[in-house]
């Protein structure tokens, strides 16, 4: 596959390491009442859709950026690639 890196352009996916569902960015609040349940769902439950899937790829053999790739798990088509750091900020993550 080819991943079109937002900064570097098209790169062979073999340069990347796959992590999984981009929801892993949304780490729950460790101080919440329901923290244990929240972290269980965060760490273990997945939508695992047959279709469009937002997922995390690490450019291990590249610029060491984490990317959020929107890819179709049926066709492998990729519709969007973003810097994970921007996505995380967009979701309100900070320090």
């Amino acid at each position: 596959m080819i991943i079109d890196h937002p900064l570097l352009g098209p790169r062979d996916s073999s340069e990347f390491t796959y992590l999984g569902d981009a929801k892993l960015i949304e780490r729950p609040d460790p101080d919440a009442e329901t923290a244990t349940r929240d972290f269980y769902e965060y760490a273990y439950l997945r939508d695992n859709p047959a279709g469009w899937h937002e997922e995390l790829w690490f450019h291990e053999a590249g610029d060491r950026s984490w990317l959020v790739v929107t890819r179709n798990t049926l066709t492998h088509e990729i519709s969007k690639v973003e810097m994970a750091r921007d996505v995380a900020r967009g979701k309100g993550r900070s320090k």
Partner: protein
Amino acid sequence: MRYSGFQVIKQALSGHKGWTPAWRDPEPQPHYDIIIIGGGGHGLATAYYLAKEFGGKRIAVLEKGWIGGGNVGRNTTIIRSNYLLDGNEPFYEFSLKLWEGLEQDFNYNAMISQRGILNLIHTDAQRDAFIRRGNAMLLNGADAEMLTTAQIKKRYPYLNTEDARFPIKGGLAQHRGGTVRHDAVAWGYARGADSRGVDIIQNCEVTGFKIENGTVLGVETSRGFIGAGKVGCAVAGSSSRLMSKANMRLPMESHVLQAFVSEGLKPVMAGVVTFGAGHFYCSQSDKGGLVFGGDLDGYNSYAQRGNLPVLEDVCEGGMAIFPAFGRARLLRMWGGVMDMSMDGSPIIDKTHIDGLYFNGGWCYGGFKATPASGFCFAHLLAKDAPHPFATDYRFDRFEKGRMIDEKGVGNQPNLH
């Protein structure tokens, strides 16, 4: 019709006119006691054992395509019970014992041949881990033997021990491991279930569940609504898709695993060899093809095909230990969709919905588990209690922190 050598001769002499269809092609009934979704190995085995061992009546298997078209028809056909952990080893050993009597049991020759499986050892730490595993196998009543490099060389003289990047320091063998003609497993179970009254309904896709106040009443299908007392799901890589129709999220991802076969060659490999320092395992079929595989492609996928990097990675592993295979040719490659669970172990459990039962998360251990999976799932469906060998395969083990993680990679399905 009972199959036998005599039958084959008799039919041959009468122009083969007497052979009947291996299973019926029935129309779906309006209601069944138990519906099994998924006409793969596990689903068919479940129906077979329900009918044969648990006196099940009015049972149907619903298959969206043709039976045996999923992972049971697209794997590398290996059977073994060389597991480490308490939650797993008794179950897989039970499965291996069922394999050992299966052909006579369902009157179909699935060519189960226990020519042994060998895990190569390359480091001291690996040896320590394999000794622990081999001991666990023996303590569970399975067979295991530690082989020296010399003993291995005797079995596989062309193994690369001279110029190896990762020297071979021995191997853990399970002589009762081996291979099976995979398609025949699906056909044998189907034929056995059909002859015991199970309706095997092909080209019947489940499009939804009918659930009222917490109880499942039946399934919507491409061939209309079918009522059921109980519904058991055994759809492997499609588990998340199916269970989402019951609003369930699973501790699971679907990944593609490629498998490869070479042109037919005169026999060179007796058993199965796995190469841990690379990603490669290989056996040779009764037709002569080298059947081999390696790692997952590594990304979520429902496409039954993979890509070049893994093909190359697998062949690199192959050439690293079998440099004599260089001039053998890859004939065909394909992919199967694996239901990769969060700890690498399966789930055979009730769901929070009454009457809805689940079997999945087999990762790439599914084929060897077929008989025990079917037997234990049938037990659960029939008795509403887990089979003694499958008590740990629960949904809640993740929330409770009781993972069964053979590889020790945690909640990272593509690494299991």
